């Protein structure tokens, strides 16, 4: 019980740490223009990153702060996270998603190596690249979810 409480407290601390980091990133967003990084990043992009970090941090804090009030909820949360069958399912799904994601990345790399110059000449390189990257993310995520469901039914 004590270990569970300690574990939850550790995660709450991590949540606060992440929230602090998001504030630092947000402050940096105001000064990015004055740094050499301005070539690669805009203040809005850095601010967006800060908001994503803050969102994750707040989510963690709400989840573990509310959970820490009820020992049963803590126990269930930790058991579900450490459950060996579920970890096996996640690992199998992750491995399959990694295989497909890597395969898609290699194919895309081959495609852009061979066709990049022609796409650039036609002014289509950026758009095509963006759609291919989005496709890779979506396909990898979809494979992960499908494999999670399939393995959960099988194991």
């Amino acid at each position, binding site marked *: 019980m004590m270990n569970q409480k300690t574990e939850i407290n550790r995660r709450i601390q991590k949540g606060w740490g992440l929230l602090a980091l998001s504030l630092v990133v947000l402050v940096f967003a105001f000064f990015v223009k004055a740094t050499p990084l301005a070539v690669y990043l805009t203040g809005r992009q850095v601010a967006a990153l800060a908001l994503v970090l803050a969102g994750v941090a707040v989510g963690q804090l709400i989840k573990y702060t509310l959970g820490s009030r009820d020992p049963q909820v803590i126990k269930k949360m930790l058991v579900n996270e*450490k*459950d060996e069958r579920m970890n096996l399912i996640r690992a199998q799904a992750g491995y399959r998603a990694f295989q497909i994601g890597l395969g898609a990345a290699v194919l895309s790399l081959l495609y852009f190596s061979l066709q990049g110059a022609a796409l650039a000449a036609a002014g289509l390189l950026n758009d095509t690249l963006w759609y291919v990257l989005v496709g890779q993310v979506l396909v990898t995520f979809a494979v992960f979810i499908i494999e999670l469901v399939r393995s959960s039914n099988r194991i």
Partner: protein
Amino acid sequence: MKNHLESLRSQKGWTQQELADRVEVSRQTIISLENGRYNPSILLAFRLARLFEKNIEEIFEYEEKDKLE
């Protein structure tokens, strides 16, 4: 791998959730174990054996066909 988890659990009068709580796994894991769809890790097998005061071999039976899995 065959196992006698369901009968051992019934003898103790425990529900699947109670057994799951005692060995700190999810109820779904107990269901999969009892159905023979999932083989436990050696650590979970030891925890179950300790809980039922049996040897691992008295709960889980290795079968020749397991070699192929």
